[in-house]
């Protein structure tokens, strides 16, 4: 068979087998799915980034020397490695998906990485600003014990009154003292002395969640040396409407 006969042979095969071109919608669907997966991965990466920013901002940098002796050990135990890993994983996945789109091959890996990183972080910042990061972190902590105890162990870290670390929600405020309910449900009387350092521009009010460094005086009393907000920013709009618990 010479190659000049190939065209005729192929055409006869097409006629005999009734081969037809695949419908256009199949290709449109395949290409659309690639984009949906890529955008979905960027979306997930943005959520991870929002949670990362939230956790970084509230990582107790101002109080680290009271929690750990060394900055390195503090970083090792407190950094949110899970979310850092997930964020990077979603970035690389999104980049891989975009490379596989119809014209993705025209762009270098570095360029695609940069684009994906930019849009993921941009969307992530928006999610963070509307409180998405905090809301998801707290929802995961309240729904999964493993997440709360191992991956988001901040509450446990701040529930060691014998070690001088306490946290909880303010129940009532009086002069030089206030009532606090810790995250385990126990009520404390917190005393404030002239040496107590309160976070700048922060006023203690009922329902505020706080972190305290000080000394346990007796079973129900804690003398505060340093008081700071639990979250550095107030709850945002999204969290307020979706995750705020009804008052008991």
């Amino acid at each position, binding site marked *: *068979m010479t*190659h*000049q006969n*190939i*065209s*005729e*042979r*192929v*055409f006869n*095969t*097409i*006629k005999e087998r009734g*081969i*037809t*071109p*695949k*419908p*256009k919608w*199949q*290709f449109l669907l395949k290409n659309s799915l690639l984009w949906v997966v890529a955008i979905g991965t960027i979306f997930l990466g943005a959520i991870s980034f929002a949670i990362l920013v939230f956790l970084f901002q509230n990582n107790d940098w101002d109080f680290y020397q009271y929690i750990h002796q060394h900055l390195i050990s503090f970083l090792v135990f407190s950094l949110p490695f899970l979310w850092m890993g997930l964020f990077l994983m979603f970035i690389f996945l999104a980049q891989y998906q975009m490379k596989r789109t*119809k*014209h993705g*091959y*025209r*762009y*270098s890996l570095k*360029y695609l990485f940069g684009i994906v990183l930019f849009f993921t972080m941009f969307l992530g910042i928006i999610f963070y600003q509307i409180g998405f990061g905090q809301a998801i972190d707290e929802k995961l902590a309240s729904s999964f014990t493993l997440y709360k105890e191992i991956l988001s162990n901040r509450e446990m870290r701040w529930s060691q009154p014998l070690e001088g670390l306490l946290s909880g929600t303010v129940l009532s405020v009086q002069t030089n003292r206030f009532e606090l309910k810790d995250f385990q449900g126990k009520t404390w009387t917190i005393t404030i002395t002239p040496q107590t350092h309160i976070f700048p521009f922060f006023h203690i009010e009922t329902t505020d969640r706080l972190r305290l460094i000080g000394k346990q005086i007796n079973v129900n009393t804690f003398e505060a040396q340093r008081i700071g907000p639990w979250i550095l920013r107030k709850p945002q709009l999204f969290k307020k409407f979706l995750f705020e618990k009804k008052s008991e």
Partner: protein
Amino acid sequence: MPLFYSSLKESDKNFTDEELVKKTLENQEFFVSLMKRYEQKLFHYILKISSFSKEEAEDLLQEIFLKVYQNLNDFDVSLKFSSWIYRITHNEVISQYRKRKRRPEGNIKELEDFVWDNLASSLDISKEISRQEQQKTIRRVLRRMDKKYREVLVLKFLEEKDYKEISDILQKPLGTVATLLNRAKKEFKKLSQQAFFEL
């Protein structure tokens, strides 16, 4: 062959590839004209980038044309049709090699003199050796080269594709194609100097 096909052949020459694709989707008879335009080019291209025999190359070319026909609705109009069909051909050759777990070595046989001259000039082969020795050197060197360098050299100098076309065929960014060609030329020069002394 039906009369209709015979009468189509002459007028088809006036159509561009892209117009023929559209017409094929309305009437499959036009696909023969499209295949006729590319069967020789692709047949020789397969031989250049693989070590298939002529019979194997013909069989593969049939499979390629069937695949092209089935995927016609996926033809991206932002590409040249030639880039698209070359892309399918290139990918099918690689796919066949993966199935056989072999490395494509390239098998350049007869080319027109002007192609050899162009190649020798572009790759800086010594003009002091005869054309026959030039061809021997080029064939030997291309066979020894890394696949990723050989394929860009073949597309650029033997298939005379430009950078954009090579980018579309190999599905690599333009910058990568330029870098690969640059490195390929250097690699070719180095290997050709070694090969020259072996002649």
